[in-house]
C-alpha cells in the first residue's frame, strides 16, 4: 500500500520543549489510521505540520509526494479542522459550511445537511455561543462532508454525548466505505475508535512508539494470569510491560505474539490468558516507555 503522507525525520522544537522528536512515519492511502497518544504527546503538532499550518524545525513532510507548504494543489486535497479551531467573527455554522463548500471540491451539501440534523446542531446561533459538543460537531461535519482525500480529525468527540459520538463513528465509517480516503483520527479514547482504525500510530512525548496495523497490534500482547511462581517462570526472558499482583495471583502483560508451543506451556502450567484491549496496550506501552526513559536517565551519569 502506498503512503499518502510521508513524514521524514520531523523535529519540532518550541523554546523549552521538544514537541516532535525525529518522527518518521507514513500514513497509508485510503486507510483509517488512529493517531493515539496522551494530551501533549504531539498529535496536533504533527497534524498541523503535515497540513502546513505549523512549521517543522527539521525534517520533511510529503503529501502525495509533494511538499504541502504554500502548495494549493496539495493543500486543497486536505482537510484539518483543529480541536481548538477558530471561526470567523460572528459566524454561524451555516457560514462555516458555505465556506467549506467553496474550498473543498468534493463537498457534499446533502451529507452536511443530514449530519446537521443528526447532531441537532442549531444553525442560527453564532459559533461563539455553541456548546463544546456543538462546536465539535461543526468540525466533524466539515471533516466528513468535505470528503477531502486526506482528512484529519483532531479529538473530534470532545463534548459530544454518547449518541453523537456513535453518530460520528457510524457516519464516518459509512461514508468512508462509499468514498475511500485517507483518514487520520487523533484520539485518546482508544477503545471507542478501536473498531474503526485499520492502522495504529502511537505517539508519546514527541516520539513514535508504535506504527503498525491494528490487527497485528491486537495479537501483540497477552495478559498471563495465574499463580505467581508459574507466571514468573513463564514470563522470564519475555518483555513484560505491566504486572498486577493480588495475593498469590499475578497478572503479567507480555509483548510478542504467543506461539503454539507457548500455548501448550501455558496449559501445562495451568495459566490463563486474557486478551489485551488496544487501549490497555497503548496505556501500558506508554507507561513502559516512560519508565524505560526514566531508568536510562538515571543510569546516564555512568
Amino acid at each position: 500500500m502506498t503512503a499518502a503522507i510521508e513524514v521524514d525525520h520531523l523535529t519540532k522544537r518550541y523554546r523549552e520543549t521538544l514537541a516532535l522528536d525525529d518522527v518518521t512515519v507514513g500514513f497509508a492511502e485510503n486507510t483509517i489510521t488512529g493517531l493515539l497518544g496522551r494530551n501533549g504527546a504531539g498529535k496536533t503538532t504533527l497534524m498541523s505540520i503535515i497540513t502546513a499550518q505549523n512549521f517543522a524545525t527539521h525534517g520533511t513532510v510529503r503529501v502525495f509526494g509533494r511538499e504541502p507548504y504554500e502548495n494549493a494543489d496539495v493543500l486543497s486535497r486536505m482537510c484539518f479542522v483543529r480541536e481548538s479551531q477558530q471561526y470567523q467573527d460572528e459566524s454561524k455554522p451555516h457560514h462555516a459550511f458555505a465556506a467549506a463548500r467553496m474550498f473543498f471540491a468534493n463537498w457534499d451539501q446533502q451529507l452536511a445537511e443530514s449530519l446537521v440534523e443528526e447532531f441537532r446542531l442549531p444553525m442560527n446561533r453564532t459559533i461563539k455561543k455553541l456548546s463544546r459538543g456543538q462546536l465539535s460537531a461543526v468540525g466533524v461535519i466539515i471533516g466528513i462532508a468535505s470528503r477531502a482525500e486526506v482528512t484529519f480529525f483532531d479529538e473530534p468527540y470532545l463534548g459530544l454525548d454518547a449518541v453523537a459520538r456513535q453518530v460520528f463513528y457510524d457516519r464516518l465509517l459509512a461514508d468512508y466505505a462509499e468514498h475511500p480516503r485517507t483518514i487520520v483520527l487523533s484520539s485518546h479514547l482508544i477503545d471507542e475508535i478501536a473498531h474503526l482504525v485499520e492502522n495504529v500510530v502511537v505517539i508519546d512525548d514527541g516520539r513514535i512508539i508504535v506504527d503498525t496495523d491494528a490487527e497485528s497490534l491486537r495479537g501483540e500482547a497477552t495478559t498471563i494470569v495465574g499463580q505467581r511462581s508459574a507466571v514468573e517462570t513463564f514470563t522470564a526472558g519475555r518483555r513484560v510491560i505491566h504486572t498486577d499482583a493480588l495475593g498469590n495471583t499475578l497478572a503479567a502483560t507480555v509483548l510478542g505474539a504467543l506461539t503454539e508451543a507457548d500455548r501448550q506451556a501455558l496449559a501445562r502450567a495451568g495459566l490463563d490468558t486474557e486478551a489485551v484491549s488496544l487501549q490497555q496496550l497503548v496505556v501500558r506501552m506508554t507507561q513502559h516507555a516512560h519508565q524505560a526513559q526514566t531508568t536510562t536517565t538515571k543510569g546516564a551519569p555512568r
Partner: protein
Amino acid sequence: MSRVLDVVRMHLLVRLTFVTLPLIILGGAFLVTLGVFALIPSDGVKIAGSGQAALWYFLSVGAMAQTRTFPFSQAMSVTRRDFLLGTMLTGLLSSGVLAALYVVLGLIENATGGWGVNGRIYFIDDFGGGNVAVAFLAYLVIAMLAFTIGLTFATIYKRFKLLGLWAAIAGVLVVLLVTVIAITRADAWPTVAELVSDAGPLGLSAIGAVVIAVLGFVDLRVLRRTQP
C-alpha cells in the same frame, strides 16, 4: 485565481465586519454631525472631521480580517499567499464602495448647500480639487491604506506577539521622528509643503498606493511564517 476570489467571498460571508459596521459608522457619524451642525446658531461654514470615522474604522477592518479569518482560512486549506491576495482584494473592494459613498455624499453636500446648514463633512472639493474621479481615488487610497496598516500590524502581532507589535510600532515612530528632525534641521518645511501641494491629491494618492504595496509585501513575508 479562483481560490483568491473564494477568499474574497469567504470574507464577505459574514457581512458584519465588511458591510454592516462600516455603514452603521458612516450613517451614525453623519447623523450625529448633522444634528450638531443644526444646533450651532452661526450661519458660517461648519467643518467636521467626523465624516472620516468610517475611514479610520478600516484600520480595525484590516486587523479583524487577519485575527478572525486567517485561522479559519487555514482550516479551509488556503495557502497564505492566496489568503493575503484575497484579503487585500476584499479590502480594495470595500474601500471602493466606501469611496463611492463619500463621493456621492460629497456631491449631495455641495448640491444642498452643506445639508442646508452650510456644513462640510465630506470635503469633496478639497480631496478632488473639483474632480470627482480624483476625490474617489483619494478616498479609496486612504481607506485602503488604513485597511492595509491594520492588516499588517495584526499579522505582526500574530507572528511576533505583543513585543513584536510594539517593536514594529516603535520602529515606525522612530523613522517618522528622525524624518521630522531631519526636515526641521534642514529648515526644509517650506520645501516639503511645496512638494505636498505640488503633488496634489493625485500625487499623494500615488504615494499612498506605493505605501500600500510595500505594506502588503511586508505582510506576506511575515504571514508566510505565521501559525493560525
